C-alpha cells in the first residue's frame, strides 16, 4: 500500500492507494499546517483502507507543510502532485486551476500529463480561498453556504479592490449601501475569477480545464470561472484531495521503480 499526504495551509488530506493504484482510503480535514490534522487524516485514511502504518511501502508528502514532515520517504511539491493526481482520473487535461486556502495556481500540462508550465499567485491573498473566507465572514455565512447564496444573485456587481483587506472594506460599504448579500457573494466569486483568468492567460490555458482544491467545491465559483474562461470547467471527484492522490501515486511509482532497480542489481 502507498500513502500520499497533502499538508496544505488550511486543510490536510491523506490517501492510501492499493497495488492496483485504486483509492483504498481517503480523509480530508479543514485544518492545515501547524496543527496535528495531518496525523488525524493519516490515521483515518489507514483505517478506511483497513490497514495499519506498517503495511505502507512508501510515503510521499506534499503541500505547504511538506518540508517540516520528516516521516515521509520523499517530499514533492503540490504543483507536481496535482498534475499526477489529475492524471489518476483523466488523461486529456491540458490545464489545472487549483485554488487552495493560501495560494492559487494554474498548471499547464503537456501531452504526457506532466507539468509544462505553471503560475502561482503572488504573496497576497487575492484570488485564494482565504479571500472567500474573509468574504463569508463579512456576509455572515459559512464558507459552505457561500455558493448557494451567490446562486441567488440577481445582478453582477464588481468588487474593484484586488487586495483582500481593501475588498473587505469595499464589501462592507456595498452592504451598507443596500446591496444584497447574494449579489455581493457573486461579486466575490467574479473578483476571484478575474484574478485567476489573468493567471490562465499568463500560463496559456487550453481545454480541457479541471479545477482542484477546496474552492472547487463551491459550485457557483466554478460556474463563474467557466463563464469567465468561456469554456466548461470539470471538477474531478475528491477534488480537495487531488494533491494527496498524486502524492500517493508518486509513492506507488517510486516504490515500483526502487523494486525494479533492486531486482536489476
Amino acid at each position, binding site marked *: 500500500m502507498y500513502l500520499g499526504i497533502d499538508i496544505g495551509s488550511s486543510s490536510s488530506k491523506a490517501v492510501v492507494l492499493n497495488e492496483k493504484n485504486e483509492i483504498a482510503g481517503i480523509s480530508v480535514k479543514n485544518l492545515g499546517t501547524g496543527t496535528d490534522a495531518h496525523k488525524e487524516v493519516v490515521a483515518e485514511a489507514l483505517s478506511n483502507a483497513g490497514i495499519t502504518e506498517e503495511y505502507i511501502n512508501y510515503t510521499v508528502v506534499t503541500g*505547504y507543510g511538506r*518540508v517540516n514532515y520528516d516521516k515521509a520517504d520523499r517530499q514533492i511539491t*503540490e504543483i507536481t502532485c496535482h498534475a499526477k493526481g489529475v492524471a489518476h482520473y483523466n488523461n486529456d487535461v491540458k490545464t489545472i486551476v487549483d485554488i487552495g486556502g493560501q495560494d492559487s495556481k494554474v498548471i499547464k500540462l503537456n501531452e504526457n500529463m*506532466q507539468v*509544462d508550465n*505553471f*503560475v*502561482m499567485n503572488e504573496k497576497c491573498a487575492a484570488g485564494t480561498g482565504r479571500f472567500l473566507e474573509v468574504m463569508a465572514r463579512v456576509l455572515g455565512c459559512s464558507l459552505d453556504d457561500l455558493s448557494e447564496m451567490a446562486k441567488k444573485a440577481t445582478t453582477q456587481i464588481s468588487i474593484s479592490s484586488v487586495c483582500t483587506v481593501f475588498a473587505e472594506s469595499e464589501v462592507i460599504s456595498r452592504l451598507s449601501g443596500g446591496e444584497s448579500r447574494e449579489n455581493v457573494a457573486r461579486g466575490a466569486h467574479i473578483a476571484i475569477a478575474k484574478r485567476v483568468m489573468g493567471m490562465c492567460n499568463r500560463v496559456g490555458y487550453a481545454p480541457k480545464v479541471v479545477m482542484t482544491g477546496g474552492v472547487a467545491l463551491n459550485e457557483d465559483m466554478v460556474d463563474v470561472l467557466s463563464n469567465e474562461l468561456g469554456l466548461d470547467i470539470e471538477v474531478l471527484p475528491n477534488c480537495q484531495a487531488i494533491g494527496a492522490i498524486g502524492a500517493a501515486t508518486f509513492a506507488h511509482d517510486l516504490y515500483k521503480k526502487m523494486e525494479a532497480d533492486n531486482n536489476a542489481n
Partner: protein
Amino acid sequence: MEYLEIIKKLEEEALHPKKSVIKEIKETGKKAIGCFPIYTPEEIIYAAGFLPVAMWGGNTELKLADKYLQSFCCSIMRANIEYGMKGDYNMLEAVVLPTFCDTLKCVCENWKVAVPNIPIVPIVYPQNRTIDCGFEYMEDEFKRVKDEISKIANKEIKDEEINEAFELYEEYRNTMREFVEVASDYPQIINLRKRHLIIKAGQFADKKRYTEEIKVIIAGLKKEELKPFNGTKVIATGLLSEPVEILDIFDENNIAVMGDDLAQESRQWRTIVNDNSGNVWKKMVSRVADQRGDTFFYEYMKSRGNRLIEMVKDKSADGVVVFMMKFCDPEEYDYPIYKQEVEAAGIPILYLEIDQQITSYEQIRTRIQSYSEMLMMRR
C-alpha cells in the same frame, strides 16, 4: 592561502558589507566612495586614490526610508536610503549615482536632504549611446565626474592615473569573465550561494587584492577533477539574485547556474572594450556604448531574449530563471518581450518576484522545487 579558504573568506566579506568596507579602509589606508547601481565609472574613483564600494541595498528593516520612498519603490533604493539615514554609510566620503531609472533620479534629490552629510555626485548616461554626439556627451560626462571626484579628493586626477586604474579594472573584468566560465564547470564546488557571494565580495574590496584572490580560486578549481552534474542547469537574469536564502533553496534542489545576465554580476564585466584609439576616455565610453541586452540602455531592437537563448544553448542549460526585483519598472517592461522569445524557443522560464526584505520563503521554495521537478521530468 588555499583557494577554498579564500572562498570562505570572500563569502564572509560579502555577507557583512559594512564590516568589510571598514576593514578594507583600514587595511588599504584609502577613503571610500559609494557607488550606486549600475555602471558607476569606478575607474575614476580608484584613480583618485579612493576605494570604490558598491551600494546594492541589503536586507534591513525599513523604518526611515519611507519618508522619501514609498512601499512601491524598488527595495534596493529604499535600503540604500535607509542605510544612509541610519548612518551605516558614514564611512563614505561621497556617493556617485547614475540616474538610470525614475527611482534613481528621485533618489539623487532625496539623498541631498535625507543624508546631507555625504555628498552625492550624479552621472547621467546618454540613451543614444551609439551615435557620435552620444559618444562625445558620455566622454564629457565622465570628465565632469572626474572633476567632481577631484574636488572631493582635493587633488588633480591625471589621465595616466585613470589609464592605470582602467587597466586594473580591465584585468578584474577579464578575470571575472574567466571565473564565471570556470565556476560553471564545477557546480559541485561553486554552488549558487558561493558563486554569488564570491562575486559580491569584490564590490567591497580593493580590486587589486580581489583580482589576485579570484585568480587563485580559478587556478584551484582548474586542478579539481571535472565531475558530471546530475542536477538541473539554468541561466539567471535580472538585477540581482538576493536575498541569499533564495539561493540556498536552489542549492537544496540541485540547481546550478551556468551563466548569468544579472546587473550585479556579469553585466558589470561582460562587454569587451572595442576601441583601439589608445585614449582611456574613449575606451571607457566604448564599454558602455557596446553594452547590449541591458534593460537600462535603450536598444531599438531589444537583444536580451536572443542573448538568453544563446546562453542556454551554449551551456546546454535546462531553463532561464528570472529574478524580478519588485517595482523595478525597467526590468518589468523588458520581461514580456524576452519571455515570449525565450518560451518560443522551447525554454522554460521560472519567474521569481523578489525584494530584499523577504522574510518568508515558503512560496518561493514551492516555485523553485516545482520548476526543478518539471525540468527533471522533461529529461
